[in-house]
């Protein structure tokens, strides 16, 4: 990809900038689609129709909403810490966007094929919590602060099962580079027809995926773990004081985070850009199609859960993490290592 860009653009710097901007365009289009999809999923779960007026089945509703958000007044509370208040939405988006650099979108495109891929991703997403705390503290509002504190407690706790389940995949795959992890999952050899995806390779990886999925629900603040922004208790949590486009950037970052964690799950468990039918519909462009399809399926499951389940209390949230997920992930890790040693 980068060689191709260097050939069609006048300078290397320009090629690098375009190379780095490709996921941004993808995220913007995805966010417009995902917000519309969320409203449609919510509506159909509740036996309604959802947005129907703007375009076919309301497909352009998000574009209209975005134009409205752009025109809104940007209100900053008098007692807010002005610089941090303005800066926090950008930092949260930078944190989730920077993590896209190591995601292999297809066999032809990965932002940076570094050897520490997953490790870098987990490290850079720790900036997300900090930016939530930054927004919460800078708003100088009790609801914001409570939301921010809850978010910090939640992220610090759920980081442990996430890292343990990612680590169990890395033990099987033997590489931190997500491109290598994807490449070793190509082919259809399990039981004669199943693709060589890691989730089919080892029975304990199925357990690891369940732990991983529950943890990413908590890390991206989705129901049933959306306590940092639970609207019945905290108004809107850390976003309470935000308005206009700054609030819009929070929304964008939240959806980008959902996509990022879903795509990470796809790479680690569902074969990344590999086609489920072996060499049928293969190649870089089809690879991108399969990758996004699998990612959007996981995003859809997240939305489905959001509109089906009620919210947990704070103590239940912590008990699920420390009493169930963390012991289970450690035991599962040892079992996976044993399975890899024996077979």
């Amino acid at each position: 990809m980068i060689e191709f860009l260097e050939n069609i653009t006048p300078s290397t710097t320009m090629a690098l900038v375009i190379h780095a901007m490709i996921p941004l365009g993808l995220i913007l289009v995805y966010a417009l689609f995902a917000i519309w999809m969320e409203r449609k999923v919510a509506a159909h779960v509740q036996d309604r129709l959802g947005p129907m007026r703007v375009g076919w089945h309301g497909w352009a509703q998000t574009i209209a909403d975005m134009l409205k958000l752009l025109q809104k007044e940007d209100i900053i509370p008098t007692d807010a810490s002005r610089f941090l208040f303005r800066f926090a939405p950008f930092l949260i988006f930078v944190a989730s966007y920077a993590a896209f650099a190591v995601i292999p979108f297809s066999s032809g495109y990965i932002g940076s094929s570094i050897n520490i891929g997953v490790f870098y991703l987990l490290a850079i997403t720790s900036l997300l919590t900090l930016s939530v705390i930054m927004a919460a503290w800078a708003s100088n509002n009790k609801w914001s602060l409570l939301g921010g504190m809850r978010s910090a407690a939640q992220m610090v706790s759920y980081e442990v099962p996430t890292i343990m389940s990612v680590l169990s995949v890395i033990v099987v795959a033997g590489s931190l580079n997500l491109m290598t992890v994807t490449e070793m999952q190509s082919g259809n050899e399990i039981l004669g027809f199943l693709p060589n995806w890691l989730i089919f390779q080892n029975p304990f990886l199925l357990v690891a995926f369940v732990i991983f999925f529950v943890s990413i629900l908590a890390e991206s603040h989705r129901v049933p773990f959306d306590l940092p922004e639970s609207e019945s208790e905290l108004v809107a949590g850390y976003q309470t004081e935000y308005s206009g486009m700054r609030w819009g950037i929070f929304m964008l970052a939240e959806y980008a985070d959902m996509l990022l964690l879903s795509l990470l799950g796809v790479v680690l468990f569902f074969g990344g850009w590999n086609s489920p039918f072996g060499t049928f519909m293969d190649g870089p462009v089809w690879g991108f199609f399969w990758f996004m399809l699998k990612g959007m399926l996981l995003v859809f499951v997240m939305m489905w859960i959001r509109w089906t389940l009620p919210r947990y209390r704070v103590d239940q949230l912590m008990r699920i993490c420390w009493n169930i997920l963390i012991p289970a992930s450690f035991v599962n890790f040892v079992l996976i290592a044993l399975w890899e040693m024996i077979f």
Partner: protein
Amino acid sequence: MELTAILFYLFSILTVGAAAVMVFSRNIVHSAFALMFALVGVASLYVLLYADFLAATQLLVYVGGILILILFGVMLTTQGHNLNFKSVSVNLIPASILSVTAAGLLIFAFTTTAWAFIEPVERSETVYELGMLLMGDYILPFIIVGVLLLIAIIGAILMSTRLATTSDTTSSDLTE
């Protein structure tokens, strides 16, 4: 100017500027956030030195640490801006003598050392070599550090549960 050079100066300015804000800010939470920016800047400088594993570790360990620091800062200043937690300067003269001496030594070391420049041909597999070294030559220190951290965690859990159980017994004593 080369792209790498521009990035180097950008991140250097970020690091030094954030460090200055951290030292001179009167607000403890602002200082903590400035420290975070300084550490992120240092991590970026590691990336420019091809030490990507070190950079990611820097982010994971120090940014997580800053988070805890900020939580303590927020807990101490729950009133936000209405009650400013003022940081005051004490021991001004000994501290300035010490820092001027340290700065002098650092500048002396920087100017007198014959720096060897090695241009790395390409990215090396630092993670692989690090893993081999940790599991081979440095296995004993690695295990000792692991045991030490485990003892620290068990100690922390013991201290927190002991507090909880003593409060439980006192409350049950009262009801009896």
